[in-house]
């Protein structure tokens, strides 16, 4: 498959890739830079790119004014919790749909995907009322449930497509070798699907970490994750761009670092099946 690509083509491709990457990264970079400016410099016109008085004041203020670690912990519990709960439900469903498909399997999959096309605000009122009545408003458990539900179709779809890549004959070989269903799943299916399961896990933690609609509408003081922590700095009363940026940087830093260390796994998982 290796095709000879001329050096010139390669250079152009690299340049284009860098430009696109920088365009995508620029807002994040700007946020990080702004977090080190004073409020006055943050809104200066023309803006200064690197030559301003670097300060850590915003971070100390933000840290003093709100409970970063409380929000951080809520984010961890909600994103990891909802992802793990989702995997527990999705792995058996995806196995079933990939290896023993029925007549309706395709339709069920499409239906699950279609729920993602509905704007979440469409179900806000019923969910809000249900949560109020069963006492799940502003609880971490409630958020775990909601985020698990909204990400479940993605988890199932991802796992389904990974599992589809596993040749059925290998599972049949396991059956011929005397493996029952439990041994087949434990010793053959799961080890082969580990890259797919891992990248699904990572991607969904990221999605859940960044989810802002439900986390903002269903929480108040107790269970608010980092998204609510950021939002609390975008108040209508004054301009706090620098502090807002500092809060944002603190909120995205953990997930950026996690993404950085797991990027190999993520890329491998996302391109699973694309390369034989």
């Amino acid at each position: 498959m290796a095709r000879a690509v001329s050096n010139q083509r390669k250079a152009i491709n690299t340049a284009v890739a860098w430009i696109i990457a920088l365009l995508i990264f620029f807002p994040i970079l700007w946020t990080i830079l702004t977090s080190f400016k004073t409020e006055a410099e943050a809104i200066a016109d023309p803006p200064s790119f690197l030559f301003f008085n670097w300060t850590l004041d915003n971070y100390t203020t933000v840290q003093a004014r709100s409970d970063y670690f409380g929000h951080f912990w809520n984010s961890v519990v909600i994103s990891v919790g909802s992802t793990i709960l989702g995997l527990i439900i999705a792995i058996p469903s995806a196995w079933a749909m990939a290896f023993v498909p029925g007549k309706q399997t395709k339709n069920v999959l499409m239906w699950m995907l279609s729920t993602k096309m509905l704007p979440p605000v469409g179900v806000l009122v019923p969910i809000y009322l249900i949560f109020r009545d069963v006492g799940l408003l502003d609880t971490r458990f409630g958020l775990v449930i909601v985020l698990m539900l909204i990400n479940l179709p993605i988890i199932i779809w991802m796992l389904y497509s990974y599992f589809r890549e596993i040749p059925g004959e290998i599972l049949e070989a396991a059956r011929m070798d005397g493996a029952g269903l439990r041994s087949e799943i434990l010793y053959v299916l799961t080890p082969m699907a580990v890259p797919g399961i891992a990248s699904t896990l990572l991607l969904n933690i990221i999605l859940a970490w960044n989810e802002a609609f439900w986390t903002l509408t269903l929480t108040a003081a107790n269970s608010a994750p980092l998204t609510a922590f950021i939002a609390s700095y975008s108040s209508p009363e004054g301009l706090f761009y620098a502090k807002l940026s500092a809060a944002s940087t603190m909120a995205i830093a953990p997930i950026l670092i996690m993404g950085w260390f797991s990027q190999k796994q993520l890329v491998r998982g996302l391109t699973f099946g694309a390369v034989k």
Partner: protein
Amino acid sequence: MGQITLEKVTKSFGDVEVIPPLDLTIEDGEFCVFVGPSGCGKSTLLRLIAGLEDISSGAIKIDGSDASDVPPAKRGLAMVFQSYALYPHMSVRKNIAFPMKMAGVSQDEQNRRIESAAKALNLTDYLERRPGQLSGGQRQRVAIGRAIVREPAAFLFDEPLSNLDAALRVGMRLEISELHERLKTTMIYVTHDQVEAMTMADKIVVLRAGNIEQVGSPLDLYKHPRNLFVAGFIGSPKMNLIEGEAAARHDAKTIGIRPEHIEVTEAGEWQGRVGVAEHLGSDTFLHVHDTGLTDILTVRSTGEMGLRHGDCVSLSPRHDQIHRFDASGLRMA
């Protein structure tokens, strides 16, 4: 022990009946080969025996007891797949050990059997490698190793050699035949390959559209094909099938004569012009045109013939080797 009996077995996928009612007995220790054109149901039949597909009706008996509803894991059969189907995340040693682990064989016994299988299959140096680091032939040997260590009642092979190149195929063919001589275990072997079928089988089952056309020893099928289909299917190059006047002279609708039973002679019964001459050294295949019998008459002569494209030849069929078929395609006595 490994006698396998199929009684009125049928298989349908939805509305499509792939195997119409079928009866077959494979004796203990027999090497039985399924052949037939693509899509005739060979793999399906094998998978029914394995238990990987459920039969639609009828019964499958292994050593006399009904196994129709027994899951594949419990049938005590081993299967070697065309794609090898090795476990990619396990070393060769672990692959071979897997069925024994499932059967709860003791660790010492496992090691003993792995060592002896590896020695027999020339895998000793590769035991710690992953399947991805092996050649096709080595992978196939691992698959066979995995099948033999569990000492199954019967081996099922689905075109195990079709992914290998010609030279390896010959080598593996001999290895499997030797394995059968040594173990004397029942083997059921699906293939497209004429030579594999003829050389390996004790019994050949010729299938067409899920029906058994004929069952018999290789020579039996070669010498006494029951109908036109088997006549055309068994043997390579194919039997010449001739209709019309030449057949009528033998009181038949169709006569068949194998390429090796036609001789190039001085003043033969048939005349023609050589189209393509294939010189194999040991043999020469002549494709003869303009005989007035069929489009192309294939002739196989031993040794090198100095014949070329366009040469005129004179041919005599060996009359004692002519097969006669009636209007329905069945063999006439």
